[in-house]
């Protein structure tokens, strides 16, 4: 019985952010992108939850943390339909969706093995040339990295 109560306690957060509608296979990627693996407040996550819209989904709850829009927009690369719910005093204070940014800096690897970013110490930078069918143009070698050959750092 006491076990059960404990479980309820952790699933609701007093203050923080809930990231919902993450594709199940992208949950760990989102955790890395938001650097939650080294975060010191409570972080809860779930994968393979049932979703009416997408079949299954993942979800992350982070207490005592509100993200900047640019941090959240990064995750749009792997979770384009994620919704961001901010909780204050156990209540939903805002709800928004992520948006793919115009520039992607420091999180994606250029697929071109002959690109300078794969040889020198340099921050990788891309311009998003196509949002739907995600295509990123490398600032350096000018080649296009697509979702199918996208690798995250």
């Amino acid at each position, binding site marked *: 019985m006491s076990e059960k109560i404990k479980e309820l306690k952790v699933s609701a957060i007093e203050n923080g952010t809930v990231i919902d509608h993450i594709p199940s296979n992208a949950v760990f990627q989102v955790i890395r992108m938001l650097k939650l693996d080294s975060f010191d407040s409570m972080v809860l996550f779930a994968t393979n939850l049932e979703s009416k819209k997408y079949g299954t989904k993942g979800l992350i709850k982070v207490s005592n943390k509100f993200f900047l829009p640019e941090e959240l927009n990064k995750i749009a690369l792997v979770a384009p339909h994620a919704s961001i719910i901010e909780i204050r005093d156990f209540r939903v204070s805002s709800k928004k969706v992520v948006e793919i940014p115009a520039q992607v800096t420091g999180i994606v690897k*250029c697929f071109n093995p*002959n690109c*300078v970013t794969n*040889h*020198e110490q340099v921050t990788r930078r891309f311009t998003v040339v196509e949002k739907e069918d995600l295509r990123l143009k490398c*600032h*350096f*070698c*000018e080649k296009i990295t697509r979702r199918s050959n996208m690798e995250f750092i």
Partner: protein
Amino acid sequence: MKNKSLVSINDFSKEEQLRVLEVAREFEKNPVQTILQDYVVASLFFEPSTRTRLSFESAVNRLGGKVIGFSEAGSTSVKKGESLRDTILTIANYSDLIVMRNPIEGSARFASEISPVPIINAGDGANQHPTQTLLDLYSILKTQGSLDNLNVAFVGDLKYGRTVHSLVIALCNFNTTFHLVSPIELKLPSSVKMHIKEKNLTYYQYTDMEEVIPKADILYMTRIQRERFSDPLEYERIKNSYNLHNDMIVDTKENFRVLHPLPRVNEIDINVDPSPKAYYFEQALNGVFVRQALMALILGLR
């Protein structure tokens, strides 16, 4: 354009490109000057490209400047594992301008962002070679009297040829009609065609070059490389089908000229060379004037 690096042809606006061509004309009239006598130009060729390197070095020498550098990475600290960052930051101390050729794509953009002196990209892998584009534009301007409203035919490897890609993109500023002749497997990539479509210009695609020649003002020939083909027989067939002979250019327009970025293999027969319509060697010479103009502008001397 003072202190501006040239990495990709798109770094310069149409007006800036035309300004380079205008100044090139000035150097063509008067190629031997002393304006660079107090300047040191670093010529860093991380892979050999004798033609491009000598063209740059000739341009500097004829203006009285000094050249330092290397013609291949083998004899340098790069071989010992020095990063490009360190090489550039060191050599920038010794020079006023760096000309760089490097097989790594994006290396010129990277160098331009860390270097305290301007960088001219003399080719970064398969990516960009903007001074070739400028000398091609200059050659077209000189032979046609204008860059506007021309019929330009490109023949050969249009898929991998970076000189073709850059020149097509640059010509999109001048209401060009494009005639694209290539084997099916070496067609111009859609990323380049996109630029033509954006400007609502017309392009035609062919696999055979003969019907294009009478329509063209400029015939831009390129080399087809054996390594692009998995089937050696297919290579032989195609190589011989894009072989320009003098009898093929007899019934062409008066202003018709044949261009080629060189080196050629057998796509232009040597019997074309004596024709007044063969322009590829003059085209190479134009490279010296264009590079003189570019360096003078970047160093603020024009």
